[in-house]
């Protein structure tokens, strides 16, 4: 191998496979008929010569160790295992494939290219006026279904609306006012003023809450006094006279 020929700059290659492919061309044979041993030697020589160059990247060294291994197996007497036969085959295949890609890459580059061999229109004016018409996506079925659903809800609401059976705060205010006018001077228990007609528990509960609220409203207005010694004791009320 002519050393001069190897005096190439490594940066001229697209990686170790590219270098190997370039070296293989020296054999002037079909890639399938390459002497892998010779190729490995050339590659290893090349790496040795360039080993001091800082830009020799790891992938070149990985390839070198692979080829060194391959070479050692090729030099051994003919007892090589199938595994190494396939290694040799593998490097040939990879070279073939990579070579094919290089050809493909050149073929792509030789195609007519936009901006070089042909051009498209660059003017940005579009003579067409494009507008989006909004089309509503609603079917009769949607409409009818919606209406039935509204009617159904309405019917249900109509069925459930009943006369209010609660004792409201307004009711309680009227009720309490009546007693304030009549029991003005003594302390009386607040809940004695619950109406007698509270037949069910729910109604009674609402009346207690409403009476308590009504009493607080009158107290706030200064028309009523309220005392409760502690939580357990009864709530007492007394009407408050305007003059004292």
């Amino acid at each position, binding site marked *: 191998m002519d050393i001069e020929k190897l005096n190439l700059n490594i940066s001229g290659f697209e990686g170790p496979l590219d270098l190997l492919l370039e070296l293989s061309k020296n054999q002037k044979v079909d890639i399938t008929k390459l002497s892998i041993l010779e190729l490995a030697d050339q590659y290893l020589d090349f790496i040795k010569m360039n080993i001091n160059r800082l830009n020799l990247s790891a992938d070149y060294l990985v390839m070198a160790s692979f080829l060194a291994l391959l070479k050692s197996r090729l030099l051994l007497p003919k007892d090589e295992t199938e595994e190494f036969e396939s290694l040799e085959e593998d490097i040939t295949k990879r070279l073939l494939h990579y070579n094919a890609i290089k050809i493909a890459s050149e073929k792509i580059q030789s195609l007519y290219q936009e901006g070089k061999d042909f051009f498209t229109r660059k003017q940005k004016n579009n003579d*067409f006026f494009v507008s989006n018409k909004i089309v509503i996506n609603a079917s009769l079925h949607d409409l009818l279904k919606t*209406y039935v659903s509204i009617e159904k809800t309405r019917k249900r609401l109509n069925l459930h609306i009943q006369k209010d059976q609660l004792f409201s705060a307004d009711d309680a205010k009227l009720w309490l006012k009546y007693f304030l006018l009549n029991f003005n001077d003594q302390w009386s228990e607040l809940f004695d003023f619950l109406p007698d007609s509270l037949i069910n528990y729910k109604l009674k509960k609402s009346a207690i809450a409403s009476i308590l609220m009504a009493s607080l409203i009158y107290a706030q207005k200064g028309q009523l006094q309220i005392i409760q010694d502690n939580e357990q004791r009864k709530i007492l009320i007394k009407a408050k006279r305007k003059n004292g």
Partner: protein
Amino acid sequence: MDNLIVKKLVEALIFSSLEPLTLSYIKKVVGNYGDFDVNKIIKEIESDYKDKGINLFSSENKWFFRTSPLLNNYLKIETEKKRKLSKSTMETLAIISYHQPVTRAEIEKIRGKPVFKGTIDILLDLKWIKPKGRRETPGRPMTWGTDDEFLKHFGLRNINDLPKVEELESIGLDDK
């Protein structure tokens, strides 16, 4: 280089240029390949493209291709964009179609929810509803009913074609 190629070249030059091209520029480029009558070539191209969708035009002696003015009526492209109506708009429309003429307050009562002005506007814009005069009650509120586009969109000949609620229920339309 023959006349035919020069003609193609001039076509291509004008077509691919970012700006309309001056005659002198075209002459300069063509001049690289020989002595050609550029004025005549341009007249030829102009005539070649006369009946096409694209015409050769000049303005202030600068040449460019543009779409044929004969197509002016067709240059407006409307593409359709499908949109769904919101639930509240659909409900409002349904109530108007079954209860017309109906006031906004009445629609609100039936729905049990407020009806926003925007909802009415959407339906008005679509020409699906129209005002149907004022109700002669205090405040004289406006009433609403369906418009022709509504019938057209939903494929109804007239508003009485709408099935009754009982009919709808009987065909199971009330099943959720």
